[in-house]
């Protein structure tokens, strides 16, 4: 039993939190801007490397660099929208998807040019797992999970109880009516990018700090993030959280039945399964 927890559940929840943070952004963008943001993974990569840059140039600890990287990526997300997506908004959405594929490559190449393609780490040295009543975790894993959960809770509270959070939900629900209520579409879009960018950076950071940083890491996680968003129900933030955690755990558990190289394929299998059997997802989101 303890083995199950330590070898599969703990890593699964960590990985799942990372997927969840990315999936939240993807589901918000799906819900409000109504397109699949293929640059999301590479936005996470950029955020992670931003944090790396801050730790090396300013000698900050990685955890201190995290909020700055989140803020930077949040602003970058708005810039990306202004430069590459905004002018496509009245054209078929698939063109924006295509643009985002191009943006993914651009973000990745920037990281590759500035930091090179060799894997990097935030801090060196081996960190041993400690035992908490039989559960083996590392401090950074606790920090990852706690921060991720904290961010998600803050976001859900924001969406449920604040004026602008509700405006975002309204825009996702019924954009025409939202406009009739005087809700500024542009402002909601900017807010969405801010949130999506910040959370993507956090996802990238956690990915990097728990394994290592490499330039393809965001892209490799993209499929799982999309699967999580669709599994939870497109447009549903709670769904993205649950979906992310589920996929993280399932991916870790998959090694019990599949060779470990196929871990990344589990997200694809789950995606096909949802589309076949329950396309609206767990929490009944939109079916695009």
């Amino acid at each position: 039993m303890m083995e199950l927890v330590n070898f599969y559940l703990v890593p699964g929840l960590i990985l799942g939190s990372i997927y969840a943070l990315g999936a939240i952004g993807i589901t918000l963008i799906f819900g409000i801007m109504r397109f699949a943001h293929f640059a999301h993974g590479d936005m996470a990569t950029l955020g992670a490397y931003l944090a790396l840059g801050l730790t090396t140039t300013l000698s900050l600890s990685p955890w201190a660099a995290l909020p700055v990287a989140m803020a930077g990526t949040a602003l970058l997300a708005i810039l990306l929208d202004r430069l590459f997506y905004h002018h496509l908004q009245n054209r078929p959405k698939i063109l924006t998807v295509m643009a985002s594929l191009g943006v993914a490559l651009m973000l990745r190449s920037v990281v590759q040019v500035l930091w090179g393609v060799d894997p990097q780490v935030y801090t060196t040295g081996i960190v041993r797992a400690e035992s908490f009543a039989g559960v083996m975790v590392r401090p950074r894993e606790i920090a990852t999970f706690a921060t991720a959960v904290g961010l998600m809770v803050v976001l859900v509270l924001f969406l449920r109880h604040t004026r602008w959070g509700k405006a975002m939900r309204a825009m996702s629900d019924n954009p025409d009516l939202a406009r009739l209520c005087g809700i500024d579409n542009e402002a909601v879009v900017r807010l969405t990018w801010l949130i999506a960018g910040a959370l993507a950076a956090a996802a990238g950071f956690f990915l990097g700090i728990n394994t290592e940083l490499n330039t393809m890491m965001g892209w490799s996680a993209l499929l799982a993030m999309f699967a999580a968003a669709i599994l939870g129900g497109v447009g549903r933030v709670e769904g993205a959280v649950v979906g992310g955690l589920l996929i993280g755990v399932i991916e870790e558990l998959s090694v019990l039945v599949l060779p470990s190289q196929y871990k990344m394929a589990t997200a694809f299998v789950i995606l096909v399964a949802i589309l076949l059997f329950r396309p609206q997802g767990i929490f009944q989101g939109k079916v695009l």
Partner: protein
Amino acid sequence: MDTVGLLNYAIFMGVLIGIYALLTLGLNVQWGYAGLFNAGVAGFFAVGAYLSALLTAPPAPDRIMGWQLPTAVGWLGAMVAAAAIAWPIGKVTLRFRSDYLAIATIGIAEVIRLVLRTEDTLSGGVRGITQVPRPFGDLPYEWSQLIYLALTWALVLLVFWGLERQLTAPWGRMMRAIRENETAAAAMGKHVAARRLEAFVLGSAIMGLAGAVYVHFMRAITPEAIDPMMVTFLVWIMLILGGSGNNRGALLGTLLIWVIWSASELLTDRLPAEVATQAKYVRVFVIGLLLQLVLRWRPEGILPEPAGR
């Protein structure tokens, strides 16, 4: 470079342009005719390449097949295999909006890549598959290369001609009608989903063929040979720049982008070693930026779709 070297280089370029032309034509069937976003082009390419190699190469230990069948069989097999993979993917996702197809094709390309990297019995492991034959392969090198170039382009023109004919045929007109106004077409009783599936499968088969042409030219294949994202992305920008929905545009775009891509490679190869690797990524950045510029200022591409066909 001496004349022979130059000639070989030109042949090499010519064949590769032909292969990319096939890929772009295949993508045009999916995107230009049916409005489908296939983000996994490289996957179908790889499937075609590997299957054709496995069918035609001699046997090797610890690896399946190697039946030394004629090249033509290999090429046919490649198309069938790519189509066979496309069919279930399309069946599941085409009911929904194209975003889902895009995500699923990224997934299938990824799965294909994983399988090829992991299953050595399929892919021949790190060594890959070698001794892939080609028609007239026994002739002296230059002749063999030249014939292959001619063969490749004969194929490209054949596919081009076939697709152009389909455009004016009832099938092509129906595809256009569906793309322009899906609800109206569905109301007229056209089976929209079935037609889109056809387009997806056909396009994928052509991509598989491109893979087969590639592997028989290179006479070998290893998992590292193809950078999936670059192949997929290059084909996309070739089509978008050249003109989507337009087969001529597809060819034009292929030529233009290939020239830009190769020329930039020649330029950056002359840079000192430390900068050369970075330079590759700068080239990727520029291509990505080029796509954004095209989407912004001329999304219909250089050769827009011929109207009222």
